[in-house]
């Protein structure tokens, strides 16, 4: 038989009922990967895209040239932010299950990405997150009540009831509006960074994309524009192994690491242990310094694991082993930073339990406050007539007419259609 072509259809190493298998994952020992000068030429540091930058060793000590040498107080702040992010996620998921919000997306298992990066960047740097970086808001000091009110679409909702839960934005906190469509923010961050350079500012931009949505053309647009203009931007690819039901092989992760795409565009690619708080902090600091010194963009691949379902509409037990997260070789970012602090003599199980209790109480208090601004089933409600605002800066005549039509309809009891909103579960 002469040879003939046959399609390769990627298949994950394990499906439900099978043993988790992460043997495909190439992991460098902590401390072994070199740290080049921040203005090194991209072609000279290509090995960073294949290796994995790691700082925290098996003994929970920080080792090697990437150790950012943070003060214990800073590490404790990082731990606090990650823990708060996780407890907030857990609470919001429960609240969704009770039917009190329509939808939610957790970031469980990948908190180090948003938290360590948020801490390594400057307050003036502009962030373009995807929908799993709520830790950025936590780092920048956002009141959780604001996030909760967005999820509730209530009278304090920053989106005025227009967006699904978790599609936050924060202009004054320099966190861009989340669209809900995938990957669109990636090239926009490049444009923001280009503008900063055009205006002669020192700020840089950072954006986050999942490995799954890196298949979108927007990823290519971002890389090309960033490379051509050497825009001061950090492009983060969060490889959490799963895009709903498709594993990272379907995004092209089988042949090359995602970080290796960087050198293809002339951009440094750094592959980092995304569950190692110190390593994520260090590579972000490196990329930020590079960007601020006209060194241009960096692509960072964060190797992590999506411990939660894609969203509350998803059921991962249908497509991956239930125990997969426990078998994940890079562990839990919170547990690892906690153990590091304990090894330094700067933390203890007792202090951790106390902090957890304190943060739990904080989340509870925030939720109680958020509910006073209205819930899906009661309390104060947004005026539906506000839906006609902000389509354009000035309301055009067709919308002004439609607003009056809805007002009349609402005031006519014979037509019950424009009644109070009712929750219908998605999915």
């Amino acid at each position: 038989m002469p040879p003939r072509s046959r399609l390769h259809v990627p298949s994950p190493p394990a499906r439900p009922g099978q043993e988790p298998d992460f043997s495909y994952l190439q992991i460098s020992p902590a401390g072994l990967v070199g740290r080049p000068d921040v203005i090194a030429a991209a072609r000279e540091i290509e090995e960073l895209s294949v290796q994995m930058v790691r700082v925290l060793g098996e003994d929970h000590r920080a080792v090697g040239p990437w150790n950012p040498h943070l003060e214990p107080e800073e590490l404790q702040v990082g731990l606090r932010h990650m823990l708060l992010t996780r407890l907030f996620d857990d609470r919001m998921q429960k609240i969704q299950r009770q039917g009190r919000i329509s939808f939610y997306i957790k970031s469980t298992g990948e908190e180090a990405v948003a938290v360590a990066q948020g801490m390594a960047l400057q307050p003036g740097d502009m962030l373009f997150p995807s929908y799993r970086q709520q830790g950025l808001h936590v780092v920048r000091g956002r009141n959780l009540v604001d996030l909760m009110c967005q999820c509730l679409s209530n009278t304090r909702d920053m989106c005025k009831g227009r967006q699904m839960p978790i599609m936050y934005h924060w202009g004054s906190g320099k966190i861009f509006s989340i669209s809900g469509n995938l990957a669109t923010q990636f090239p926009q961050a490049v444009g923001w960074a280009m503008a900063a350079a055009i205006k002669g500012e020192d700020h840089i931009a950072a954006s986050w994309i999942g490995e799954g949505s890196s298949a979108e053309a927007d990823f290519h647009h971002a890389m090309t524009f960033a490379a051509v203009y050497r825009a001061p931007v950090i492009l983060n690819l969060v490889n959490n192994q799963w895009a709903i039901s498709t594993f990272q092989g379907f995004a092209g992760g089988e042949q090359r690491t995602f970080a290796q795409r960087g050198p293809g565009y002339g951009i440094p690619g750094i592959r980092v242990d995304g569950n190692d708080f110190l390593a994520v902090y260090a590579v972000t600091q490196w990329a930020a310094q590079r960007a601020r010194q006209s060194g241009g963009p960096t692509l960072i691949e964060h190797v992590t694991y999506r411990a939660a379902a894609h969203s509350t509409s998803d059921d991962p037990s249908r497509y991956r082993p239930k125990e997969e997260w426990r078998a994940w070789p890079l562990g839990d970012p919170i547990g690892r930073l906690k153990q590091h602090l304990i090894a330094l003599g700067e933390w203890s199980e007792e202090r951790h339990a106390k902090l957890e209790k304190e943060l739990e109480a904080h989340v509870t208090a925030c939720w109680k406050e958020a509910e006073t601004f209205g819930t899906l089933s009661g309390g104060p409600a947004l005026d539906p007539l506000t839906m006609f605002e902000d389509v354009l800066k000035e309301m055009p005549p067709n919308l002004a007419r439609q607003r009056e039509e809805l007002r009349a309809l609402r005031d006519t009891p014979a037509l019950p259609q424009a009644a109070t909103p009712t929750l219908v579960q998605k999915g």
Partner: protein
Amino acid sequence: MARMNMVQALNSAMDVMLARDPRVVILGEDVGYFGGVFRATEGLQRKHGEHRVLDTPIAEGGIIAAAIGMGANGLKPVAEIQFADYIYPGFDQVVSELARLRYRSAGDFSAPVTIRTPCGGGIRGGQTHSQSPEALFAHVCGIKVVMPSNPYDAKGLLISSIEGDDPVVFFEPKRIYNGPFDGEPHKPASPWSTHPRGEVPEGHFTVPIGRAEIVREGSEATILAYGTMVHVAEAAVKMARVDAEIIDVRTMAPLDVDTLCTSVCKTGRCVVVHEATRFGGYGAELVATVQEQCFWNLEAPIQRVAGWDTPYPHAFEWEYFPGPGRIAAALKLVTEAR
């Protein structure tokens, strides 16, 4: 015959076609092992193999472009775009390529691609999971645009789409996947199992593309609707106590002008209904067509009932949704005009 909801009917259509025609392939995000986020392709990969039911990278432009290449090379691809709101990265491939390949090559090349995509609101999906972009596609010459309103039509129209030689954008109103929805969110949902059009042949059959259907005969007015709005129109007729004829347009392009205009010429009054935004919406095409064909029979200005000209707001779904109350008011307006 079997009882099917709309998802099962679509699944059955693809199953029948995969079995009948070796050229048929299914592709899309999460459609393979997982069976699709709305379960429309459940079990198909297991049954027909992973070379015929393909999971894809998350790239709608890539999915549609690859489907065009497959179609040009003799296959009959059925591409799923997970939500109609996600179709825009593939819009260039639809408008500039899929719709024009036959024309620009004078028939030398063509791509019989079917693009299935769930549309419409009412599931708390906010502005990125609720859109009805049928007008954007109906405006493009060189593709057919279809939207069924029940399981029977869904299966028959999908088989027709796959069997045809032209590209089809096939919109699935997701709010009625599990049951007809009359626009009253406070009432308990009713299932397809009690609806006559929930009865669907298990094997092969077709419903022709390009034909509208009279779903309720009447004499006092004509309602032109499609998708979810067919059921909402039925509720509105009861509410307004008007003997209106309801026509399910079913195919936006090519349009069954005869069925629509024969009805309006008979009743002399017309209400056009859709869930999509009003301005430049597909209703404008319907109104223009009716006006051209029925002007001398019209007794009242034609009314349009549609979504407001804003993105679909998460918190105000039911204020946004053109429910039976608004349609009933429009019916009163056209029937009371003298």
